[in-house]
């Protein structure tokens, strides 16, 4: 596990988990820093399986949604996948209003998000 500015990063076998450290992501400087840091993580890996964990976050502005969309498009371009988890109900409401809940796969918690990336076990023979 490592910390990079406003993010905590966990690298696992086939999944990378980014957790936001701030409770409120509202000011433009923080949003830019956070977006740039996420993009660096994505650029560092090909075909990344990325989980973005919102557990610590109580407030975010709509500018954060824009940065998430940008990261989502980068991940997809690199043939990776991105999922979100730990989103509180008030923030989830904003995803619903803007229909982004249909674009992003959103899971209740980190554990479920990580497990969702695991390939089903195959029996040989």
């Amino acid at each position, binding site marked *: 596990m490592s910390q990079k500015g406003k993010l905590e990063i966990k690298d696992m076998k086939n999944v990378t988990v980014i957790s936001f450290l701030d409770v409120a992501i*509202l*000011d*433009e400087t923080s949003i830019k820093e956070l977006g740039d840091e996420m993009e660096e993580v994505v650029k560092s890996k090909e075909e990344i399986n990325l989980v973005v964990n919102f557990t610590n976050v109580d*407030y975010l*502005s*709509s*500018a954060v*949604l*824009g*940065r998430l*969309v*940008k990261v989502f*498009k980068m991940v997809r371009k690199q043939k990776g996948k991105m999922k979100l988890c730990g989103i509180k*109900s*008030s923030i989830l*409401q*904003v995803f619903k*209003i*803007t*229909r*982004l809940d*249909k*674009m992003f796969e959103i899971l209740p918690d980190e554990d479920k998000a990580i497990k969702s990336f695991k390939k089903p076990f195959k029996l040989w023979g």
Partner: protein
Amino acid sequence: MEIRIQPPPEYGEKLLYKEIQSTLDLKNPLIEEILSTLKEKGFLPTEDEKYGAQLCLDEVIVNAIRHGNNEDSSKIVKVSLYVGEQLWAIRIEDEGDGFTPEENVPDVEDEDSWELERGRGVTIMEHYMDEIWYYNNGASVQLKKKMSESFFKKMCSSFHKAIEKILSYIGIR
């Protein structure tokens, strides 16, 4: 959404008026001041209502600073907060040329719009606020929010109970 010719009505009493330079650093202290004024007046009783108000204030103020005044610090944004008996309204005026709704507000039901990196502000404001009144070619806007009915009833009931207690204490009832 339309841009109207006439300015919106002034709802209630003007409790706060600020003129700020068009720099985004000044946004959050102003939003905090507006939110605490509204809280003092009994609005925003729940975290969800506070968050809704915060999101909408963020949207209108950022729009005015960034898109209206192009973050030109020589230009100002005027902010007025009105509070009535059961509603509050915020009026934001910038020095820009305004905007054209069709060009600037994507339709969230259109799947192609989901991948846009901006333009969700109006959708968010339309959800949380009861009235959005653009005028002055879109360079000015007023948002209105009514106090939620259940909270108003609760407040009236608490007030009624307090009066009953006082009357009973002084021996009238």
